[in-house]
């Protein structure tokens, strides 16, 4: 009976090995090779691609990706926490409010990113409205900059912050809050001294769930950053298309993977019981 069970997992093993592990192994190999004359791969084996990453230009891109992802994460936390708190206290309508958060997320990432293009561009809704109201004369450059990218990322990944926060807040013992009130704590104090520290696991989970996709973002900086905001994702894509430098692109990819893995390991260590 027990031998039969292994067969259920076989197709998934096959898919994971051929379409996940092997491809990663291949780009690992590529990262150690050299760029061919007309693009592609050639000998010799070398660590040149990884050394190039130390170039200030690329370190700059790395740093920029961290700061954009970090900003997006912090904003998601600031915006998401009160929302999660609201939902956890909303009694019977909890599921409705949760669905309202989740629903936009599953509609289409491309469309949602495009929506901000529509709103932020020079002839977009926000600028047109502000001009009509006479508040500004020339359109504000809202699109094609770091700010737009951060906004797009926050919009895209806010649900990833709200859900784990909600899960933790929901499990919070109401008695603790009442005890704090009994001891004379004003609402703000109760919030900062009791609720926030106790929701640390949720905050950590949400932060990881937002930071990692933001770090590796490609579509958002591409559409909303307009070529000026180059993050790691854009760099990688560029190497595999225009620049045709596969070894370097592979090296950057693996570095990104390594960073993601390290972040995950640190997170899992601090969090008993994995992701929430």
């Amino acid at each position, binding site marked *: *009976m*027990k031998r039969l069970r292994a067969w*259920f*997992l076989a*197709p*998934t093993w096959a*898919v*994971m090995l051929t*379409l*996940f592990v*092997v*491809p*990663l192994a291949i*780009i690992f190999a*590529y990262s150690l090779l050299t760029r061919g004359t007309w693009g592609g791969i050639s000998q010799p084996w070398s660590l040149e691609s990884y050394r190039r990453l130390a170039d200030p230009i690329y370190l700059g891109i790395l740093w920029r990706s961290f700061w954009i992802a970090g900003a997006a994460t912090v904003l998601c936390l600031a*915006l998401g926490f*009160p*929302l999660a708190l*609201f*939902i956890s*206290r909303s009694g019977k309508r909890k599921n409705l409010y949760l*669905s309202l*958060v*989740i629903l936009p997320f*599953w*509609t*289409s*990432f*491309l*469309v*949602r990113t*495009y*929506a901000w*293009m*529509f*709103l932020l*561009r020079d*002839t977009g*809704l926000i600028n*047109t409205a502000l001009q009509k109201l006479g508040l500004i004369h020339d359109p504000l450059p809202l699109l094609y900059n770091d700010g737009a990218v951060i906004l797009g990322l926050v*919009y895209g990944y*806010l649900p990833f912050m709200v859900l784990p926060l909600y899960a933790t807040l929901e499990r919070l013992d109401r008695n603790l809050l009442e005890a704090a*009130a009994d001891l004379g704590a004003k*609402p703000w104090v*109760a*919030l900062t001294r009791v609720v926030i520290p106790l929701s640390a696991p949720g905050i950590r989970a949400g932060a990881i769930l937002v930071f*990692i996709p933001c*770090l590796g973002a*490609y*579509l958002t900086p591409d*559409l909303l950053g307009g070529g000026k905001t180059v993050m790691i*994702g854009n760099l*990688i*894509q560029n190497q*595999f298309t225009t620049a045709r430098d596969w070894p370097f692109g*592979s090296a950057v990819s693996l570095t*990104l*993977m390594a960073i*993601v893995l390290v972040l*995950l390991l640190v997170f899992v260590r601090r969090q008993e019981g994995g992701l929430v």
Partner: protein
Amino acid sequence: MKRLAAPLAIYAVLAYLFLHLPLLILAGFSFNQSRFTVWQGFSLTWYRAAFQNQQLMEAAGNSLIIAIFATVFATIIGTLCAYGFWKRSSPVLAGSLYMSLVTPEIVSGISLLAFYQWLFRFIGIQLGMYTVILAHVSFSIAYVVIVVMARLRTVDAQLEEAALDLGANEWQAFRYVTLPAILPGIVAAALLAFTVSFDDYVITSMVAGVDSETLPMVIYAIARRGVNPVVNAISALIVVGFGSLILISERLRAA
């Protein structure tokens, strides 16, 4: 803490507006007569234009075919996997599925491209529908496993034992006892896999061939050049379509 109720509620309204208004506005302006961001009357021009655009329609068709095939394979493989996990956990496989979810899409995309290029030295196939379908299957399985596993956890493991005890073999126990219980979960997982596949841009763009352009790829190309009301119309359709599928999926998961 009760004094926070009112400000929290106001904040919640603003937050929900932030989440939903951009899409509502986008959808609203898809009915705008003019292509400028000034309302000039209700019209279905852009919807007509969308359906008359051959490139768009062909791409939509491709996306549909790819999504259907990818969904069928991913759902079957993922359900079997979840069932296997339910019987006996496999941390390594579970870990690799988790990694596939966490891997940045661009990295998955280029690694698959590299894999296909390397493979094509031995087999003569080019990038095309098949390569896209396989890629979609690879990243959809994790979603299916998560949804079906969640459903399986609600099923009493002893029920299959009872079925075996009463004379059913392993397949019959699954078919008559477990499958009926998890069917809503399987359908929910399939709907999820469908939307994830249909909407994918990053990975698809890396591994699609010349004749396998998908709808997101066309939308991206148009959007790259700037805002186009035809995209608004398509977007509105996508949002409503996906929204409905996901709503149904959520209902099934709770059933």
